[in-house]
């Protein structure tokens, strides 16, 4: 108890146990309140008093501190995010930004909703639960729209691969993503694993979920209809996660600060699975008038947002909320971030049916209040009124800041840094590169995720994008990819954001899908640092203008600020998710070579572009220069060619070129099915530049000989550079006059890195004792070479 109180700033700051009622607040206007300790500024507190016409009760003060936190109010980002709303509307977009997630019409009467969110700070404090509840939270966001969640993805970023703290957080985060998603029965179809010291002490755990619904059955969050019941569904409310958004997500970690573990929520995927099935059954029976998930800011957020969205009044009897701990106080009940809860607005005539469905699934359902006349949210606690506020003042009318910005002082020096000398390419260089932490195989991570449950997964890791079938009857499906490159964005946030968008589009197009919508998770340092704010403004401007150029809308997203430890911010990391559509998933293009004797073609233009490259980083720990040039017109053209090639059945394989350049793409495409290649590099640029440059707008494709002419003529006609590189053949990778390596050696190098750092792959330990505990991988595991048989 005392530990919890000492670490709970709300409790600590308020420090009193008598319930502070509205009546009492009105009578004691001058009572000093600990608003600063709760993260509210002087003028913010003054505005609360102005809105209420009195001092807030302690419960109200806690609510404002949460809802006006950076995490909930987007107060620093709002002015920049408006650009996304100004993008040209797409007729496919059924619900845009503002709701819990955007909804996209995919045809055949179906729609999908998807979104990516961060759960960075909780995952640093408590890796397993932080990551697990990150999955749980984004899944509820998707469920809230009326959709059945059908897949997850997880872009992850860690400190240096061999740093001791990475050994602490990575196994737990991966196990948490898997533990929660696997238990929900959602295939994990891809994501990212990136290592960079800027994420040391601040790993990024982003989670994406996509759901499917009938397009005429979208659920919205508005609470309307006087007399409708407000029903809390799911887990009991406990003290876990109090202050999650205001303490964890809206402040910087300081050395020696109080332990923040009590602010992390604890997940129960089984309860969430039952909650999903029961809600979907209620949606199907058309029993729900409005619904909202409980995530960050818990009941406070759900009550105020549903009431504000419906422009309704609401009365909630807080003492009816089922509690895990009877001693909880009203502000704790309202602030709790206990997981696996939803708030439903239900017409009285449907209430019994809703309660019956909940009972069938073993889900607790409690009518805690009702929609009432007027425009006030009133909350009572054992007969006394503890909250009486206009809900929009919390949900929509939080403070907005146009924060000062400054171009980072070190940017010119970074950009003009002398690049490392280019080497001669040989076998050892390629082996080192494919084994380097950011280019090596992710098998160790991905094998811990169920990638196939639900039976719709057509492509998953290590493919460029995940592809999932939505309709067994027609083959209609979607492709999804997420990308982000913090080094590029550090060097040029505007271009970096566009490069991430371009890469995600390219990955989706490589499978044959047409990119149609964008979601984003913007991970940055402290917005109170003008240099970070400048990075954020540049990145959002780049993304908005990029989306306009590509002609695809942003459907929603998430901003994560304060990703820094002390005063060192992470590399600015916008993670971009792109949704693509495939009219028939049977025509998807895989990334691996499919057979010997096919023609290998390089699409797009290669330039001498190694600024911010994986080579410079992996070989020299060098970050400098400018990232590759972005040409979104070219990028769009490449995408169109890849989609046409798939539609006309010309392509056997397609793989986008990005980190690690052509060399990495050749190795990955060859290793996929163990089919090698003989490559002759064209005249012109050096072999090193051709193999390791990271010029954007390129892809490696194979076509059957019979299709070669037709395909190259199509590229010529459309003006897309297309160079013949060689043929697929044999069991090795030969680049004439440069290198010649058997695939077995490449595979050993490519797949050995993560097992050496984090423990052998399953099955490689058959005769060894049970592996080390998840949170404590053996430090000396580097000595063992896994048998990949």
């Amino acid at each position, binding site marked *: 108890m005392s530990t919890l109180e000492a670490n709970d700033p709300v409790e600590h700051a308020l420090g009193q146990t008598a319930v502070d009622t509205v009546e009492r607040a009105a009578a004691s206007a001058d009572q000093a309140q600990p608003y600063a300790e709760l993260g509210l500024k002087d003028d913010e507190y003054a505005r609360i008093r102005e809105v209420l016409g009195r001092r807030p009760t302690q419960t109200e003060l806690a609510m404002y501190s949460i809802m006006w936190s950076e995490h909930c109010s987007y107060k620093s980002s709002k002015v920049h995010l408006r650009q996304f709303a100004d993008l040209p509307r797409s007729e496919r977009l059924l619900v845009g930004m503002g709701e819990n997630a955007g909804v996209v019409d995919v045809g055949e009467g179906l729609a999908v909703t998807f979104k990516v969110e961060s759960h960075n700070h909780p995952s640093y404090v408590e890796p397993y639960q932080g990551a697990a509840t990150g999955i749980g939270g984004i899944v509820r966001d998707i469920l809230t729209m009326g959709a059945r969640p059908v897949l997850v993805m997880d872009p992850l970023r860690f400190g240096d691969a061999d740093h001791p703290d990475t050994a602490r957080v990575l196994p737990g985060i991966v196990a948490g993503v898997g533990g929660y998603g696997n238990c929900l029965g959602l295939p994990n179809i891809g994501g990212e694993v990136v290592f960079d010291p800027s994420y040391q002490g601040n790993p990024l755990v982003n989670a994406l979920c996509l759901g499917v619904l009938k397009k005429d059955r979208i659920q919205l969050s508005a609470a309307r209809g006087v007399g409708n019941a407000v029903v809390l569904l799911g887990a009991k409310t406990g003290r876990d996660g109090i202050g999650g958004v205001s303490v964890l997500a809206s402040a910087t970690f300081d050395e020696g600060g109080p332990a923040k573990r009590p602010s992390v929520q604890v997940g129960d995927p*089984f309860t969430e699975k*039952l909650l999903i099935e029961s809600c979907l059954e209620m949606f199907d029976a058309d029993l729900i008038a409005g619904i909202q998930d409980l995530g960050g800011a818990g009941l406070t957020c759900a009550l105020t947002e549903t009431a504000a969205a419906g422009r309704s009044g609401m009365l909630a009897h807080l003492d009816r909320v089922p509690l895990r701990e009877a001693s909880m106080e009203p502000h704790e009940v309202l602030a709790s971030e206990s997981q696996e809860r939803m708030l439903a607005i239900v017409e009285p005539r449907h209430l019994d049916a809703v309660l019956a469905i909940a009972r069938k699934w073993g889900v607790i359902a409690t009518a805690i209040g009702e929609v009432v006349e007027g425009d006030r949210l009133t909350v009572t606690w054992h007969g006394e009124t503890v909250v009486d506020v206009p809900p929009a003042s919390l949900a929509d009318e939080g403070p907005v800041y146009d924060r000062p910005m400054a171009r980072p002082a070190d940017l010119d020096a970074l950009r003009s840094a002398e690049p490392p000398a280019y080497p001669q390419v040989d076998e050892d260089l390629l082996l080192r590169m494919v084994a380097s932490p950011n280019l090596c195989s992710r098998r160790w991570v991905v094998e811990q995720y169920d990638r196939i449950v639900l*039976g*719709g997964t057509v492509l998953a890791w290590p493919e460029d994008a995940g592809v999932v*079938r939505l309709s067994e009857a027609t083959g209609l499906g979607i492709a999804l990819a997420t990308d982000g490159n913090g080094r590029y964005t550090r060097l040029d946030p505007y271009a970096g954001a566009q490069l991430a968008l371009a890469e995600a589009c390219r990955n989706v197009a490589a499978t044959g899908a047409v990119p149609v919508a964008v979601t984003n998770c913007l991970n940055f340092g402290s917005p109170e640092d003008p240099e970070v704010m400048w990075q954020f403004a540049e990145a959002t401007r780049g993304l908005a203008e990029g989306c306009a150029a590509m002609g695809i809308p942003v459907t929603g997203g998430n901003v994560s600020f304060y990703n820094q430890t002390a005063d060192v911010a992470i590399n600015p990391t916008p993670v971009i998710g792109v949704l693509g559509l495939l009219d028939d998933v049977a025509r998807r293009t895989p990334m691996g070579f499919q057979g010997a004797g096919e023609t290998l073609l390089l699409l797009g233009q290669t330039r001498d572009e190694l600024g911010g490259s994986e080579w410079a980083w992996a070989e020299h720990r060098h970050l400098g220069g400018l990232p590759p040039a972005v040409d979104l017109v070219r990028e769009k053209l490449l995408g169109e060619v890849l989609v046409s090639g798939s539609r006309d059945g010309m392509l056997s394989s397609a793989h986008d070129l990005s980190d690690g350049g052509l060399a990495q793409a050749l190795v990955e495409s060859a290793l996929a099915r163990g089919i090698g290649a003989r490559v002759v590099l064209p005249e012109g640029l050096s072999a090193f530049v051709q193999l390791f440059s990271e010029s954007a707008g390129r892809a490696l494709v194979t076509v059957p000989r019979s299709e070669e002419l037709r395909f190259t003529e199509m590229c010529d006609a459309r003006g897309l550079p297309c160079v013949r590189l060689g043929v697929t053949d044999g069991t090795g990778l030969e680049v004439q006059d440069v290198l010649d390596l058997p695939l077995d050696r490449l595979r050993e190098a490519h797949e050995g890195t993560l097992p050496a750092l984090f423990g052998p792959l399953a099955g490689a330990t*058959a005769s060894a004792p049970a592996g080390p505990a998840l949170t404590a991988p053996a430090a000396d595991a580097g000595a063992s070479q896994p048998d990949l048989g």
Partner: protein
Amino acid sequence: MKIGVVTFPGSLDDRDAQRAARLAGAEAVALWHADPDLHGVDAVVLPGGFSYGDYLRAGAIARFSPVMQTLVDAAKGGLPVLGICNGFQVLCESHLLPGALTRNAALRFVNRDQRLRVANRRTAWTADLAEEITIPVKNGEGSYVADERTLDALEAEGRVVAYYEGGNPNGSLRDIAGIANAAGNVVGIMPHPEHAVEDLTGPGTDGLAFFTSVLGVRA
């Protein structure tokens, strides 16, 4: 031919088992854990997932559900029952099959395409199988254990239906991937045949043979 697929709270691969049954040519019938009626089905699949959240022990709570009370008797009477992954765990907890499934040796969930050597093609569910098949494995508690005497007996009686080949993904004793009861109507298998029924979504269609096999039993 009707193949029933039981949904427990927390079942995850139930719709996949139904799809596999349909692709094999059977009618798939959804059975609910709280309903003891088997609705006249000719065979039953207990699907993968985390029934009751795997709380207490995987399969330990599902064993007491109303449908299992009926199913245990029906299985003893010869009804073909296939337990996949969590279903295998339920069959062991129900004592329809010997032994138990414990935490993977590496203490991590593992999902990969897995080669299996089929050792018994005389059961209701394995008659149509090839000698070697590849189907996905995905489990966190898939390590098959039993005492030496039981293991010896299973092998002596030919009741091991499949062994892991090319690496044991979970540390199962003697590389055992699946077993049958003495009568051959009840089979438990840790890897997932229902996820290898279409070229588009699986490593191939080797898994379909489990479902066509049982069609032959009652045809």
